[in-house]
């Protein structure tokens, strides 16, 4: 073990604190990060004075960080701003209820049925589907707000705190990209064709848009990573590159998440409009004729 190992252990500890303090009010977040930074420095100096090796210092740093993870998470959950926690609860509630009301409760009809039978099936569940979609859009709005805050937080980050943010953002992006592809390729197909929606829109346009969006973004990511790696390898000018890296990744994540949401939500909006129209048509047919 060497001084480099000690530096890596310290960096890991600082990355962890950067991660679990994301989204906290600036005063609390900055205080915790600065306290850990000071603690790590004091520990390094004390161990050095006592003649301990760099390897032992690194091990103790990692041990203190790892053993503190449960307490960090408990502290994080209890410390978040009340407004943020309420929004989190709203997100969980509206997303769960929305998905249930819009998709699970209505169930899946026999897609080989005739168009009128499909229309009848969905029209009978028009209210549930409408309320479900309103809740899904609400949760999408809350999610968009969270992503915006995350991006703003990553842009104001200081040097040395960026790499783990970048990893988190890349992971989030990968998840968003997967969603984007899944919904683009399969999500809209079942609400098309004979049911009344234009299949050229639902089966071709949105999947194509999703794929194009994803391909362009992946290309941009590859170019960006290559460029930043080249800058850091050449050295000298790489002192702030982690902050820059995660800042730009924040924007890419925002783009990707927005794209995934649009690819999912726009076909659903079309579907909802169709259900509402069919509901009126079907209920109109059921009304007794007044002579």
């Amino acid at each position: 073990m060497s001084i480099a190992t000690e530096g890596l252990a310290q960096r890991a500890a600082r990355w962890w604190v950067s991660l679990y303090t994301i989204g906290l009010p600036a005063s609390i977040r900055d205080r915790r990060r600065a306290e850990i930074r000071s603690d790590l420095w004091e520990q390094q100096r004390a161990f050095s004075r006592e003649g301990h090796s760099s390897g032992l210092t690194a091990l103790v740093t990692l041990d203190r960080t790892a053993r503190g993870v449960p307490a960090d998470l408990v502290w994080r959950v209890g410390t978040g701003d009340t407004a943020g926690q309420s929004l989190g609860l709203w997100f969980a509630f509206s997303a769960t209820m929305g998905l249930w009301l819009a998709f699970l409760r209505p169930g899946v009809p026999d897609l080989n049925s005739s168009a009128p039978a499909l229309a009848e099936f969905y029209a009978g569940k028009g209210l549930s589907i409408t309320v479900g979609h309103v809740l899904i859009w609400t949760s999408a709005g809350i999610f968009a707000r969270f992503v915006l805050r995350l991006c703003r937080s990553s842009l104001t980050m200081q040097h040395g705190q960026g790499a783990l943010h970048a990893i988190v953002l890349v992971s989030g992006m990968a998840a968003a990209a997967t969603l984007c592809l899944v919904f683009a390729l399969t999500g809209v197909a079942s609400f098309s064709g004979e049911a009344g929606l234009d299949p050229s829109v639902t089966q071709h346009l949105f999947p194509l848009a999703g794929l194009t969006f994803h391909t362009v973004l992946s290309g941009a990511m590859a170019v960006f990573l290559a460029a930043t790696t080249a800058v850091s390898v050449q050295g000298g000018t790489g002192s702030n590159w982690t902050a820059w890296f995660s800042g730009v990744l924040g924007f890419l994540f925002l783009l990707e998440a927005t794209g995934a949401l649009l690819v999912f939500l726009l076909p659903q909006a079309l579907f909802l409009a169709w259900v509402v129209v069919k509901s009126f048509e079907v209920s109109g047919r059921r009304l007794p004729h007044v002579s």
Partner: protein
Amino acid sequence: MEVALDLRRRGVFEYHGFLIAKEIQEREGARLLTAHGTLYKALYRMEKAGLLSSYWEDPLTAADESRPRRRLYQITAAGQKALAEARPFQANPTVRLEPREANP
């Protein structure tokens, strides 16, 4: 809290997080230093409860010594009182509170 009071008796009126971790380790003869999460969560909560107070040291002091700024903690009067009240229970954990007599 005990550590804070011990440090105070020894003339150390303000202490940073790592110093507290080190004192706890030496006091209890522990093999490991208190974990970051455990230590700072406890300090944060005790400060919120008014048992400790804290402030950032002067940046010039830290700059002079080429190190990050320290967050310095002090035990408050309420903290000392709470500790004094807790002592009998620490010395004899089997002590039980007697129920108060009802007012006639």
